[in-house]
């Protein structure tokens, strides 16, 4: 199984430094795909002050590890790095990082998209937005469920 590193943390991360650390001194990696999820400044058409992410720590680690393992068995990956923040996050700040590395680009692209679709629907985090002095829970999107579901269709259709 290729190397995988998963971190759950409150602190911001440096996406460029993470990618540099993965690829340093390696000549087998031909493709690196980096996805960063960022806190937007608005939700449902109104500006937000902040986002707060609640999480279930032990399950988040276990579940993300399962998703990464699933990606590693399905695609040829040389390494995977996932960072997911929790706690209070301001607009413009990064929330999540997924980096996948492979010899050729198809596997890195597909695995990164798969991991994001699964993180959105199965990783135990819940977002609360602060808007105009009040907090409310963000509702899960059906489009996210649909995106995750397409990975279980017969291979020819999904890929």
């Amino acid at each position, binding site marked *: 199984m290729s190397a995988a590193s998963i971190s759950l943390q409150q602190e911001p991360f440096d996406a460029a430094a993470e990618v540099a650390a993965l690829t340093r001194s390696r000549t087998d990696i031909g493709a690196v795909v980096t996805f960063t999820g960022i806190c937007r400044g608005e939700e449902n058409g109104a500006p937000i002050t902040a986002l707060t992410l609640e999480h*279930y720590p032990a399950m988040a680690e*276990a579940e993300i590890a399962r998703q990464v393992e699933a990606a590693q068995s399905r695609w040829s990956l040389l390494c995977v790095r996932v960072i997911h923040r929790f706690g209070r996050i301001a607009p413009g700040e990064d*929330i999540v990082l997924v980096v996948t590395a492979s010899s050729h680009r198809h596997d890195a692209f597909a695995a990164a998209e798969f991991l994001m679709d699964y*993180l959105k629907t199965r990783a*135990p985090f819940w977002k609360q937005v602060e808007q105009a002095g009040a907090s409310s*829970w*963000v509702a*899960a999107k059906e489009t996210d469920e649909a995106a995750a579901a397409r990975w279980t269709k017969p291979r020819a259709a999904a890929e």
Partner: protein
Amino acid sequence: MRVKLLYFAWLRERIGKNAEEIEPPPGIATVGDLVAWLAKQGDEYAHAFANPGVVRAAIDRAHVKADAPIAGAREIAFFPPMTGG
């Protein structure tokens, strides 16, 4: 057999606790049975579990469906659909 229950997000807010230990009475075999029983334990529980279709569960840190048996579970978590990523 005592089991630890965990609550997250608005379920936690409605119930007013993030965790508790309970001993489910005999006859509670599945997650669905447990939700139905919990809903009767007080107004706050009824409010939290008012729409069981929207409540998700995990047993020992893995997602399960409503028909999953709870026998042997050490930790059962209840939460709304996830919004991470």
